[in-house]
């Protein structure tokens, strides 16, 4: 299965979270989310936590790469 990617870079609140929510709709095992600010990172992390996903975050060049894994 191909990896689902969400690009939330540059989007204002709450678009990164909405895009992530949409990506999680069919309960995929893994989703990769890229965001470019700490607010979006925290918001996506909260959504993931509330939706039963574990989150790994690594800092990239200009933002954060978040790997969401189904618990």
């Amino acid at each position, binding site marked *: 299965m191909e990896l689902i990617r969400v690009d939330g870079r540059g*989007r*204002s609140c*709450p678009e990164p979270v*909405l895009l992530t929510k949409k990506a999680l709709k069919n309960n995929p095992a893994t989703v990769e989310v890229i965001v*470019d600010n700490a*607010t979006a990172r*925290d918001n996506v992390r*909260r959504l993931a936590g*509330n939706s039963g996903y574990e989150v790994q975050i690594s800092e990239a060049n*200009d933002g954060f790469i978040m790997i969401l894994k189904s618990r």
Partner: protein
Amino acid sequence: MPFKNKEARLMLMVGAMVAMLAAVLVELGNPANMGLCIVCFLRDTSGALGLHRAGVVQYIRPEIIGISLGAFIMAFSRREFRSRGGSAPFTRFILGIFVVIGALVFLGCPLRMVLRLANGDLNALLGLVGFVAGIFSGVFFLNRGFTLKRTYASVNLEGYLFPALQLVFLVLLVVSPAFIFFSAEGPGSMKAPLIIALVAGVLVGAGAQRSRLCMSGGIRDAILFKDPHLLYGFMGIFAVSLLANLILGNFTLGFTGQPVAHNDGLWNFLGMMLTGFGAVLLGGCPLRQLILGAEGNMDSVITIMGMYVGTAISHNFGLAASGAGVPLNGKVAVMIGFAVVLTIGVLNSEYISIFKVKGDANLGTHSS
């Protein structure tokens, strides 16, 4: 349990701090229920600069300067300051104008709405109902793919210009040259001491940056994601403000005789509805725009400039309400505002197509 969660606790604490500082500012001279009001204070500042000539609401409010600088310092030290922009700036400018036109018909930004509510001003309850209705309207478009498209990184200097502008305002406030207007009477003349207002602003700005406190975001996220997180800030402000008002003996329940307020229920509702609608499309309430602007988000800076201009329009064109009620011009402006914000909502929602041909028109397929 939310209160064991670190993020939620921080949010509640920042809300509580904002409420306490607002109470202190009123005790030390700010107008009643106006310890903090972003739109009112932008309005006072634009009046002081002579952008409008309503003599009773002219003062460079140090709270705005403090909030901007506090948020800037906090963002900078947490390495969250980044110059960026380019997401439909002129659309945001116009949304900024109508967000404040709505707020000045209600007489207060969403933050002051909560402070008024905590003082027993029941007119603010109608404002709150309108605000929620406005947020629902915004969420309707978010659910249909509303977006003002993305921002991009911009040159570094750009981001520093907004905090620098606030420093210029601070200099103008301290030096008070003859071309700056300061109210001799009315709400604009009622003010806490400069240093205290400035420091209170810095604390609010730093706290709001750290916690991402947002008045419209709380209700929006509760609707969209069933996530009450941002609402804790709202609740913290309300609870502590209520407590402070009860202790200080300021609490009076009712519709009439409320400070800097009118009791035209319909327009309290519609004014705040317009503000809530616009705020959701902008991604945050006026306070949040200030914080984002100080973090280097130029789109928010443009929005703030729209808000300064909106306050000037409100007073120059006789749109703003007063204790006496809402002028006809203000009612017309709010209706125009709904038409404009609705149009912006429809035309920027990806799943609402008006001009697009079904199956999408592909430029390459046209035969000549």
